[in-house]
């Protein structure tokens, strides 16, 4: 959070980042460690995708939710991802999404922290094989170098199709997300 505040101080107002874009990028990069989660079912076969197109869950005014893709999420800078994210939300809420954006996601991220939810357990969007959920940031007592300090903490969850992965691999994936979020400057 400190990194984000300092980064946004350097950025012009229209180029500021939201915390959510860090989560999206961290998920995309963590898939390098566990690539089987970046896949879609084609018939009876799960097919891994070379590119990472993270679907982002967006609530619509008046109800409903869509999860269009941010294309090439892993290979896009945070600034460009943020611009793409803003554009995607604006078009989702004005009915301007392209059909390919709704069919292209290879994994989905949902964040319910703003609704006050601490843990979000998502339901996989077929034909994808995984969804990552984030809750709200809360301050928790944390032990750092033997001292208890207050730290902002967010709970990440993974729902994954057991036909393509397992709990061990899922744990490695979440550990990679955690590691990446500890070093946001490298996202």
């Amino acid at each position, binding site marked *: 959070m400190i990194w984000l*505040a300092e980064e*946004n*101080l350097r950025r012009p107002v*229209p180029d*500021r980042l939201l*915390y959510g874009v860090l989560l999206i990028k961290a998920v995309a990069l963590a898939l390098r460690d566990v690539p089987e989660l970046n896949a879609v079912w084609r018939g009876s076969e799960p097919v891994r995708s070379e590119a990472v197109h993270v679907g982002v869950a967006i609530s619509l005014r008046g109800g409903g939710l869509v999860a269009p893709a941010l294309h090439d999420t892993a290979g896009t800078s945070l600034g460009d991802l943020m611009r793409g*994210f803003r554009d995607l939300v604006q078009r989702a809420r004005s009915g301007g999404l392209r059909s390919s954006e709704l069919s292209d996601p290879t994994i989905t991220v949902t964040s319910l922290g*703003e609704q006050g939810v601490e843990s979000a357990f998502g339901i996989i969007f077929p034909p994808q094989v995984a969804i990552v959920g984030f809750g709200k940031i809360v301050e928790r007592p944390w032990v750092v170098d033997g001292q208890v300090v207050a730290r902002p903490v967010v709970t990440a969850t993974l729902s994954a199709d057991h036909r393509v992965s397992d709990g061990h691999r899922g744990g490695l994936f979440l550990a990679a997300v955690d590691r990446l979020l500890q070093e946001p400057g490298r996202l």
Partner: protein
Amino acid sequence: MTREEIRAAVLRTLGEIAPEADPATLAPDVPFRDQLDLDSMDHLNFVIALHAALQVEIPEADYPRLATLDACVDYLAAAAPGRH
């Protein structure tokens, strides 16, 4: 720009971001988020639009000072160059 003009600019901006916002029923001293379905993206777009409309730099640390209509007008009237 007068406080009334700033107020009108804030309401116009809010209407663009949350079309369901009704200026006639918006309580000026109650947080926007308690009255409207706004998320962090909406709030960022609100700040960007105010910045563009009023040429006011709004540091992220000051976002809490934009929570209500009255607070917005107070903040922007003080921050806008050569105003009121």
